[in-house]
């Protein structure tokens, strides 16, 4: 695996994905009365995707393998992409806890956590993050709830409507 370049790994993943979807396409029932079955279009797309992925694989195999030190270590990778990783993790936690906290509390917690994770850790900054979280989510909640008539997820803590 260490000798494969990124393109080769992506091409192999794509081919595996194609295989999985081909298998799923075989499970699509054929109703018989339609001139074009429901599986025809997926087969058409998957054939194209498989062919271009194979071309991509062949192209990638012609490229030299990564040199020693060219690929970052797991620690270097995490440090390099720390901000996006933190955002994705916080967003994931926000989604998992959404049924409990609801959009108002959960959204506020999400904005506060994201700003605090991305920004400087000083008392002044944290206070500012808290104000931004409360104002931004509160304002958006009011706009959607009252102006647009959208009932955002209430959660279990405050059944606010």
């Amino acid at each position, binding site marked *: 695996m260490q000798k494969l370049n*990124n393109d080769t790994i*992506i091409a192999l993943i*794509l081919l595996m994905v194609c295989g*999985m*979807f081909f298998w*799923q*396409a075989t*499970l*699509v*029932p054929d*109703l018989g009365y*339609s*001139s*074009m079955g*429901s*599986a*025809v*279009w*997926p087969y*058409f*797309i*998957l054939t*194209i*995707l498989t062919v*271009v*992925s194979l071309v*991509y694989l062949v*192209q990638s195999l012609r490229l030299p393998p990564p040199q020693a030190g060219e690929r970052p270590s797991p620690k270097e990778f995490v440090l390099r*992409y*720390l*901000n*996006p990783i933190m*955002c*994705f993790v916080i*967003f994931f936690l*926000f*989604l998992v806890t*959404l049924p409990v906290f609801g*959009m108002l509390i959960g*959204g506020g917690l*999400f*904005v506060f956590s*994201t*700003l605090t994770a*991305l*920004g*400087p850790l000083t008392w002044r900054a944290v206070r500012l*993050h808290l104000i*931004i*979280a409360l104002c*931004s989510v509160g304002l*958006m*909640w009011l*706009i959607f709830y009252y102006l*647009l*008539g*959208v*009932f*955002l*997820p209430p959660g279990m803590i405050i059944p606010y409507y």
Partner: protein
Amino acid sequence: MDVILLNIADASVAVFQFHNIALIAIGVLCGIVAGAIPGFTVTMAVVLTLPFTFGMPPIEGLSVMLGVYVGGMSGGLISAMLMGIPGTPAAVATTFDGFPLVRQGQPGRALGLGIWSSFFGGLIGAVVLATLAPTLANFGLEFGPWAFFSLIMFALTITGSLAGDSLIKGLIAAAVGLLAAAIGAEEINSIDRMHFGIDSLRGGFAYLPVLIGLFAFSQLMSDIEDRDAARKALIEKDSKYVKIEHWYAIKTIMRSWGNLLRSSMIGCFVGVLPAAGASISNILAYDQAKKASKTPEKFGTGHDQGIIAPEAANNATAGGALTVMMALGIPGSPLCAIMLGALLIHNVVPSPTFILDQPLIAYSIFVAFFFAHFLMIAMQAYGLRLFVYIIKLPMYFLAGVILVYCAIGTFALNNIEDDIWTLFWFGILGYLMKKFGFPLAPMILGVVLGDLAELNLNRAVSISDNYWLFLTRPWSLFFILMALFSTVFPWYQKARGRRIWTLAFVPLMLLVMAVPLFMMDSMIRTVVAALMIAGGIYMLWKRQQNGWALDPTDAAQPPLATNEPA
């Protein structure tokens, strides 16, 4: 003509309602703010506005989005001129002369020229939209399902080949977009497919969460990647009050009407082309203005003409892009794909019959687009201090707030929490695709056009099981040939001036593309086809006369490719 004027009058009554004007003004304001923030794109601004328009009637919802579109196109000039950093890719060429002029102590003059050029360019684009769209729609009426299917394939291949550095990656992105659209409930036979037994996949992905995830989420992650840069203010200089020199700008632009007209037409033409957009037109217009100028050496030093050209072109591009979307129902860019999404949300389906069937909505789009430019001028003139203040905020403030807003907006679409999960997964996918060099534009078009492509393929097969009709129907053949040439185009672009076969590419294209035109039952098209053949033969003859000698200056041309839509 009378019908057009009557439709415009009806649409004006609908658009010029007080609350509608207020909504367009809010849209323009938001667009300018988003356009002014480096790292944001107009597409992202339009995506983020979409959730607010769900509950509005079609004309109001579309008016807001057109306001954002127009505002975003002109907002990029603020940071381009004041900071030297283009707010959007559509304002790249604006920095070439705008920034030097500001550094010479003339910010009022630079901003005036930029704002008024945007205004006039946009108006020319609006006129092109109102006059060309109905004509183009008449062409669209000749298309059968074969031609529509081929047109979609052409749109995908040309976007795949032009949207990034690698044709294969572009095609993979387009195919992945089509695949994402094919998952879940199939419309024609009402069968759930490829859902892996996961209940939330049975209904398929609503494509707006997919678009917001792919575009907005992944873009925000890229913007905050650098920890230090994310914490810094986007602009750190103290901004002084700038008095915009309106009269000087208007007089200069009127004197440079040739440059204005040429640049606007370049913008419209590039807008009509699938996959091309304002990120290309502004550079192309700047280049042409420089070539046509008697003082090309002044370009790059703060020359007025160097500001007029890109700003007129990028706003005019919107008119061209909307023309194709409204006339044929095919979005040529991610931005138009999102506009198409906005129309579909309001149960308006653009197609060749759209302008005939729904003249009030169609002409309201023309009028709102036209009128938004007047509001843009007013906002730019009086709101400059606010825009400059907003771009003083650090990026991470905006990222955190916008992410939660994406979640709320996505939920508001169908009131389903699963849509927020869709946003999240496609946000990760979009970010990874960007990191590994896969362009997002073809995937976005694939997601939007997937169902339409399947529907037209199904219709074609239902009418006749003769697949040769894809090649014997003139318009279908035309688009298939265009798709083939667009696939080869990136190789041509790279090899131009270095390989002998490239000398035959354009003449061959002219000769081959004449065939479907000959097949069409029209005298004008036969004449055009004959001219194309004559042109192709003449070019081949000239190259034969030159002994098939390569012109090394061709190799120096920059590639016509863009990684990011405007």
